[in-house]
Every structure is written in structure tokens, then in C-alpha cells.
């Protein structure tokens, strides 16, 4: 039986202005986009310790009723169990394709974002370390960020990305964007008329890359090379996020603004 979606559903992420990093922002935006596409209202709550509150250690996570679910994959399944799904209209081959492209984005874009913010020394010193530990006093902020950096670098080494240079990583990002651009073509969404979780995921990552200021603009330049991808991001932003304010917005205000646009 499908239970109704409660009014006080909340999405937790780190502090938007001072703390959150590129990769976490991308994941959070992807989940927000997905829930918007499903027409499920959600509040965004920013907490400094969101990462530790999460059941899997990763942000974002949603608190719905008395259940807590984190990361896009499990959230999609959870929402499907509640009776809302974006990919029901796809046939088996299309579903396989969708899953494959989602893995491509996770494999290449997310890993590249993690590499850039934790393995590139300049970015680590100037952006990541100050931001990651900012809510905490010294020395806790340095300890926490060094711990996280060590963890991420271990993972990069295990999957073979530790030996890559920044140019190679940017080349991989370019290859991934090229593939996404080819797949999107001139359609409004990846599977023609209806948005799916793949559109939400791609939007989350690309929009964050385009709008986040890093040391250099090389990463966003790679995405800007593909005009259909930037148009795709703008379209989804206009359609689903126009009423979204800087701080945590209320449900009522957002839904009324959305109805004006449609």
C-alpha cells in the first residue's frame, strides 16, 4: 500500500555557504531535482554534522516519516516503493541504458570531482581544507579534513586514479561530457519527453560544476564546450528550481511559484 508523502519530509546536507563541497553539493542537487521531478515536496535543512547523521556516511539523506534514506540510488528505490517513479514508462533495454549512464556519471564525473577537491594540492589547501572543517574549532577542523583526505586518497589509489594527473582527469571529464552530449542530442531529456533519475543526476553534477567557483575554470570550461548540456541545465533549472531561494525554502512558497511557471 502506498503511504502518502508527509508534509514535513526533509533533506539534510552540509552548510550551503561555508561548508559544503563540490561533490556533496552535486549529489544533493541531484536528489532535490529528482524529488522535484516526482512532485514530492521537500525541505532542505543544512546541518554541519549532516555527514555523521547519515546512515551511510554520505550526503544527502532524506528523513521521511520515520525512515532515513541516503544517496540517490536508495532514495529512488524508496520513492518507488511509495508509488512514485519516473522510469516506469521505459522498456527493459532503456532501463539498462539508463542504469549504465548513471554508472558512467558516478564513475567518471563524481570521481573526477572527488579527485579535484581532495587530491589536487592547490585546491585542497585553498578551498577544501578551509571549507570542510569550517564549523569546528581548531584543531578539530584540521584533523577532520586530514582524515577525510586520507580516506579519499586511499580510495583513489585502490581504483587506480591516484596515478592520474590533473590533465588526464580533465580529459576523462571531457570524454564523459562528450558521451552525455551525444546521448542527449537535441532531445529535451535523455529519454525524450519525460525526465528520469538520469536527468536529475546529470543536472546535479553539471549544474554544480558550472556554477561553482574553483581555483581555475578548467572543469567548467570542459562542460561549457557542449552547448546542448548547458541548455539542458538551464531548462531544468527554469522548470524545477525557479522558486528555489538561497536559504532553506518553505514548501508552500515553492509550490505556488511552480504553479505560476507551469
Amino acid at each position, binding site marked *: 500500500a502506498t503511504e502518502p508523502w508527509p508534509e514535513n519530509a526533509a533533506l539534510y546536507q552540509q552548510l550551503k555557504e561555508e561548508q559544503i563541497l563540490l561533490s556533496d553539493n552535486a549529489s544533493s542537487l541531484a536528489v532535490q531535482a529528482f524529488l522535484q521531478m516526482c512532485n514530492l515536496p521537500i525541505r532542505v535543512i543544512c546541518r554541519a554534522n549532516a555527514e555523521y547523521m547519515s546512515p*551511510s556516511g554520505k550526503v544527502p539523506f532524506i528523513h521521511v516519516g520515520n525512515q532515513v534514506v541516503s544517496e540517490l540510488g536508495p532514495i529512488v528505490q524508496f520513492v518507488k516503493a511509495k508509488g512514485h517513479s519516473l522510469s516506469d514508462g521505459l522498456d527493459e533495454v532503456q532501463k*539498462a*541504458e539508463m542504469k549504465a549512464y548513471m554508472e558512467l556519471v558516478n564513475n567518471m564525473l563524481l570521481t573526477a570531482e572527488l579527485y579535484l577537491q581532495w587530491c589536487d594540492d592547490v585546491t585542497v589547501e585553498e578551498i577544501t581544507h578551509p571549507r570542510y572543517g569550517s564549523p569546528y574549532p581548531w584543531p578539530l577542523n584540521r584533523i577532520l579534513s586530514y582524515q577525510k583526505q586520507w580516506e579519499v586518497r586511499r580510495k583513489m589509489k585502490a581504483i587506480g586514479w591516484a596515478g592520474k594527473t590533473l590533465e588526464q582527469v580533465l580529459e576523462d571529464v571531457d570524454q564523459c561530457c562528450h558521451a552525455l552530449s551525444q546521448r542527449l542530442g537535441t532531445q529535451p531529456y535523455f529519454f525524450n519527453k519525460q525526465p528520469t533519475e538520469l536527468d536529475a543526476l546529470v543536472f546535479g553534477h553539471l549544474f554544480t560544476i558550472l556554477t561553482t567557483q574553483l581555483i581555475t575554470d578548467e572543469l567548467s570550461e570542459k562542460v561549457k564546450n557542449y552547448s546542448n548540456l548547458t541548455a539542458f541545465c538551464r531548462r531544468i533549472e527554469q522548470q524545477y528550481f525557479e522558486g528555489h531561494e538561497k536559504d532553506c525554502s518553505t514548501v508552500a512558497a515553492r509550490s505556488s511559484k511552480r504553479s505560476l511557471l507551469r
Partner: protein
Amino acid sequence: MAAPMELSCWGGDWGLPSLHPESLTVMAYAKFSGAPLTVNIINNSWRTPKGDLPVLVSEDTVISQPAKILNFLRKQKYNADYDLSAKQGADTLAYIALLEEKLLPALLHTFWIEAENYCSVTKPWFASRIAFPLRLYLPGKMSREALNRILLTKGGPPLYSLTEVEAQIYRDAKECLNLLSKRLGTSQFFFGDTPTTLDAFVFGFLAPIYKVCFPRVQLQEHLKQLPNLCRFCDDILTCYFRFTVSGHSPAGQDTADANLQKLTQLVNKESNLIEKMDDNLRKSPQHPPRKLTTLKLAAGGEESGPMSRLSP
């Protein structure tokens, strides 16, 4: 065309040219694109420049990862993806990512971490091919690396023990196999009738699961329930790897011997039949006088022949 290219990789068994998925991928791609590679079966991955196989050496360039090797081959004009549209090229990248994320952990687990498999099959096989004293160290190192990779990429909370991680990765792998099977459908290769990069990668990952005989085989059993994937592997093995297969595996040698035996039996039978026909002809009443005269003439001719040759 190009300088001679040499590929160093692990050897094979159970009907496969190599047991290592990445080596198998590169070999398959070389066969599909017609690149002339000399395959060098080596038994010591420490001799390679960066310590991992497969490695392609061409003149002065040394390239080590499968994706980079394939890129190099494409630049040398050995391109198996020539006929693919841009969208199909994008699909290739996506499916390769799916294979690496979902299928590779379970493959590594089956080979290197599952205790029974590792102790009874993988470790002895690799140890028998590596020289002493490295054979005491290298299989263990490869096993530890595989465990590390799986735990770091898949083993965060809420999965706290190795058994939970195992359950999750096998679930993912079976789902991945189902997705591949649906994508392949009834066609011979993933993009029509000619094999491409994606076919090379899928073959590289599936063939070891399919062919190697392990004691714990849950992934193999699941794969055998997907007949189009099994047919896909068998097709590639018979079409592209026939000569290497018959050279290496004992099963292939036996069939060759059996064929030879059958052939000799047939020849013997035929010659027996011919002799019988001859006998019948000689015994039949119509021909004896003519036969005798021809024989005498032949005998006479033969006697005179050598004598005339012998005389100077």
C-alpha cells in the same frame, strides 16, 4: 603498416587464451580490429614497467592500461568502432562503466577472495606459473589488493561485515548480467553483426566467469541461465580464438586426435572396399583372359624398363 607490437599478459587455461579479464579484453579487441599483435605469455608481473598487466610494447612506447592500449591501437588505425554512430560510442562508455562498477567486484571476489576458490584454484594456478620465490608472495599481494579495492569502494556503512558486502556485490553482479542479457537480446554482437570495443570488454569480463571451473560458482550458475550471453562467449571463442584454443587446451588436442583417428579409419575402410571390388572383378567370369594378358605385358614391360635404365 606499423611497428611490430608485443603484448605481455597472463596465460590461459580451460579453453581461454588468458585468465586475466583485462588481458582478455585487449586480446579480443586486437582480433576484432585485425591488429597484428604478438602475444607474449609472461609469468612475472614485476618485470613490467609499472607492475601491472597487460602491457603493450611498440618500439619505444610502453602502455599499460586496457583503455589506453585500445586508444593507442585506434590511433594506429586498428579501429573496431569505425561503423558506430556517436550515440553508440557514448553507449559503449556507459556500459563499460556499468561493467567496472557492478561486475568487476564480484569477479574479483570469485577469483581472489572466496576462500575455497582462491586456495584450490586461483593461487595454485598463478603460483605454478610464477617463478620461485615470487610465487610465494605475488598471489597473496594480488588477493590483498582485490580485497582492498572491494572494501574501499563498496564496504562503507551500513554494510559492516564482509558477508554483507559479498551479498551486495553478488546482487549487483547478477543484476548487471541480467541488464547485459536484455541489451544483447538476440543479436550476435552488441551493435549488430560486427564486434566492437564493448564486445571486447564484455567478453573479457564474462569469459573467465563462464569457463573457469571453481568450487563455488554462484555467478557462473547465474550466467548459465542467460543463454544469449553464453552463446556470445562461445561464438567469440570459436570464431576468433580457435587456433590458440586448440594449441593450448588439452580438450582441444583430444578432439584433434579423435578427428585424426576417424579420418584414418575412413581411409582404411575405403581402401578395404577398393580391394574387395578388385577381387570381385578378378573373380568374375567375363574378364580373366584379358586380365592375364595385360598382366603379362605389364610384367614384360616392367622387366625391360629397369634393364634398359640400368644399361649405360
